[in-house]
């Protein structure tokens, strides 16, 4: 069944070429794009089952045996991530089609969207299968160039500005990665991951440390870990909702995947594990503190994205089978949930006209279904028990407790605080956008209601942002909640300035049916992770077991057998 593997890259790339040729036939273009990604989902799903039964599948492209040729390697980790990301790609594509079908939307994808999206898909899928570092670099470039186009889609001033930040950061990350590849080749004489793994132990300690650190920095920028994450909340929120959703779900996870490979197969030793744990703690805490201080939903979600990358890095940094297994499970959970939340924010923007929590309000009455769609993944991300977020976090904390080092306990503490603060930040959005009645939001800003009639066309809103912890509690109608204990009555006398009015959610903006349908499927998918958590966790554990014994990987690639 090895012929299935290259299909995952070939079909999207060919599909992109065909779709590019059909620029004038939008319907056909759309159909082809959906068909291509549906094929990818089917192939990835098949591979996931096959790999679990028969072990790692290796394809030597062009028949050149490793280490001379390019190897595509699909082990359990790859297969799992391939399946999840192909499904997410398909789902987000359907969402964007839903936006496309709606009339008069400035965010509606232009014709170049579909081919670019397919190139992005090819890049992401190729990255998960790359068996040598240089192929990984090419895959990264493929998805990055596609993402450059997607993030500046439409070329408005906002997006060009945000895109520049993103592009320059990515260029630097790629440069560091390429330099690291050059040095690895100089040191070991190969770029094949399996062969590097064999040879790296023979290198002097300081050379190992240099190569390890350089690769880690390159991947760390892509994965958006703490000191290297500041580009993300600047650039992601300005893109159209489906683009942000797929970036948030997949692009950072490609970085995480590369870090997992780096720490388990290329440099299996515990050389930098302590550094990773420190970085994980800082990522979690700094990220979530950023989220708490935001008033724009998309920016807030971008900060929670960063903060939850910390959980995955924590699992990797523990350097044990249980830790890696938990990190893999958490990655899958986070891909699905974070994408879902961004999709929901896209629908919120459509219905409410803005993503600023200052102007949103009354969505609970206007769209009760949407309220439920927001609440479920929000609880999931925060880690409320029945959901997969809880299972993932529990797994991580157990792995850390088993590790038992002081740093691991600090990480557990940071994780708990982060979960609470995530929940707090997301519930603030809930209070402002859904729970707060509409008139209250409007009464506060009557004097500016005509000042900026097109304010909702810009995102993120350039609104002043201050939310202190004590007064962060939103308005509670009828005193139904008693959580607020801060004496904030004194501050309530000064009306907020610079508020932008939102579009009133009324009868003439009906719920965009397709968007809601796709979002519902995404939410159900994230809930389904709980249902299949047992088998999924088992799969993640088996994946981690084969990762933590790199010999198996090396044998599979260099031995040329399918076992």
């Amino acid at each position, binding site marked *: 069944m090895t012929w299935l593997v290259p299909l995952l890259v070939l079909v999207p790339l060919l599909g992109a070429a065909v779709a590019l040729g059909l620029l004038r036939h939008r319907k056909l273009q759309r159909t082809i794009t959906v068909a291509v990604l549906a094929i990818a989902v089917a192939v990835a799903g098949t591979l996931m089952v096959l790999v679990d039964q028969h072990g790692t599948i290796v394809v030597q492209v062009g028949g050149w045996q490793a280490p001379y040729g390019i190897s595509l390697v699909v082990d359990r980790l790859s297969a799992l991530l391939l399946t999840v990301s192909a499904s997410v790609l398909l789902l987000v594509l359907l969402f964007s089609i839903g936006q496309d079908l709606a009339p008069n939307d400035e965010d509606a994808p232009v014709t170049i969207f579909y081919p670019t999206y397919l190139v992005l898909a090819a890049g992401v899928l190729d990255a998960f299968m790359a068996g040598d570092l240089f192929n990984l670099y090419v895959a990264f*470039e493929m998805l990055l160039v596609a993402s450059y186009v997607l993030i500046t889609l439409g070329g408005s001033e906002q997006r060009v500005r945000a895109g*520049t930040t993103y592009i320059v950061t990515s260029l630097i990350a790629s440069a560091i990665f390429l330099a690291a590849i050059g040095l690895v080749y100089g040191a070991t004489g190969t770029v094949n991951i399996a062969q590097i793994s064999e040879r790296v132990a023979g290198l002097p300690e300081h050379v190992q440390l240099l190569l390890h650190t350089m690769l880690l920095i390159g991947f760390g920028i892509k994965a958006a870990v703490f000191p290297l994450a500041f580009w993300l909340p600047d650039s992601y929120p300005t893109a159209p909702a489906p683009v942000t959703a797929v970036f948030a779900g997949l692009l950072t996870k490609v970085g995480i995947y590369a870090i997992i490979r780096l720490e388990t197969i290329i440099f299996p030793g515990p050389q930098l594990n302590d550094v990773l744990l420190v970085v994980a703690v800082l990522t979690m805490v700094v990220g979530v503190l950023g989220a708490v201080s935001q008033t724009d939903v998309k920016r807030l979600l971008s900060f929670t994205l960063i903060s939850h990358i910390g959980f995955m890095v924590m699992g990797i940094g523990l350097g044990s089978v249980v830790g890696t297994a938990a990190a893999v499970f958490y990655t899958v959970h986070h891909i699905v949930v974070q994408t879902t939340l961004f999709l929901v924010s896209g629908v919120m923007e459509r219905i409410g006209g803005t993503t600023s929590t200052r102007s949103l309000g009354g969505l609970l009455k206007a769209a009760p279904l949407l309220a439920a769609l927001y609440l479920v993944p929000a609880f999931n991300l925060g880690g409320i028990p029945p959901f997969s977020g809880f299972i993932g976090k529990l797994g991580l904390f157990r792995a850390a407790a088993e590790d038992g080092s002081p740093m691991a306990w600090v990480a557990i503490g940071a994780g708990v605080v982060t979960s609470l603060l995530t929940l707090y930040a997301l519930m603030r959005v809930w209070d402002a956008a859904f729970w707060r009645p509409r008139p209250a939001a409007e009464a506060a800003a009557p004097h500016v209601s005509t000042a900026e009639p097109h304010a909702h066309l810009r995102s993120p809103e350039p609104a002043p942002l201050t939310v*202190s912890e004590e007064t962060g509690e939103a308005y509670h109608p009828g005193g139904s909640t008693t959580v607020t204990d801060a004496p904030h009555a004194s501050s309530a006398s000064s009306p907020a300035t610079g508020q932008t009015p939102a579009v009133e959610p009324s009868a003439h903006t009906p719920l965009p049916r397709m968007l809601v349908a796709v979002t519902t499927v995404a939410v159900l998918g994230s809930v389904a992770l709980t249902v299949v958590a047992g088998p999924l966790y088992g799969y993640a554990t088996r994946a981690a077991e084969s990762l933590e014994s790199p010999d198996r990987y090396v044998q599979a690639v260099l031995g040329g057998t399918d076992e």
Partner: protein
Amino acid sequence: MTTTLVLVIAMAVLFSCGVYLLLERSLTRMLLGFLLLGNALNLLLLIMSGAAGKPPVGKTAEGIADPLPQAFALTAIVITFAVSAFLLALIHRSWKLSRADEVEVDEADAAIGRDRDDPADDDPEIDTDPEAAQREEASR
């Protein structure tokens, strides 16, 4: 592994100039920085292929120049080319939009800074409801 010191120095100079230019605000300078960086990386790949002067083809694998880094460099050149084309388009677009070639300050980021200096502006969600404030004051 032996290599020419000149090449190493050239690479280091290209790298430092490239990084310096990338840190500029002007988009055109960034592009130039990126091009220098790309060339520095290609040189690095070339240096890694070992000593110069070996024949490109030979009867046996012994003694010929290592073709792999050359293939890497070729791929890297193509990628650099594509990205610079995109950057040029971006610069053009930025110029058409704002007649400026600079990366602007992020509005939302700047707003956080502005807020620090303005203690009067408090939590919006509380401000938006004058009734709640009245109720609270009445209860005191």
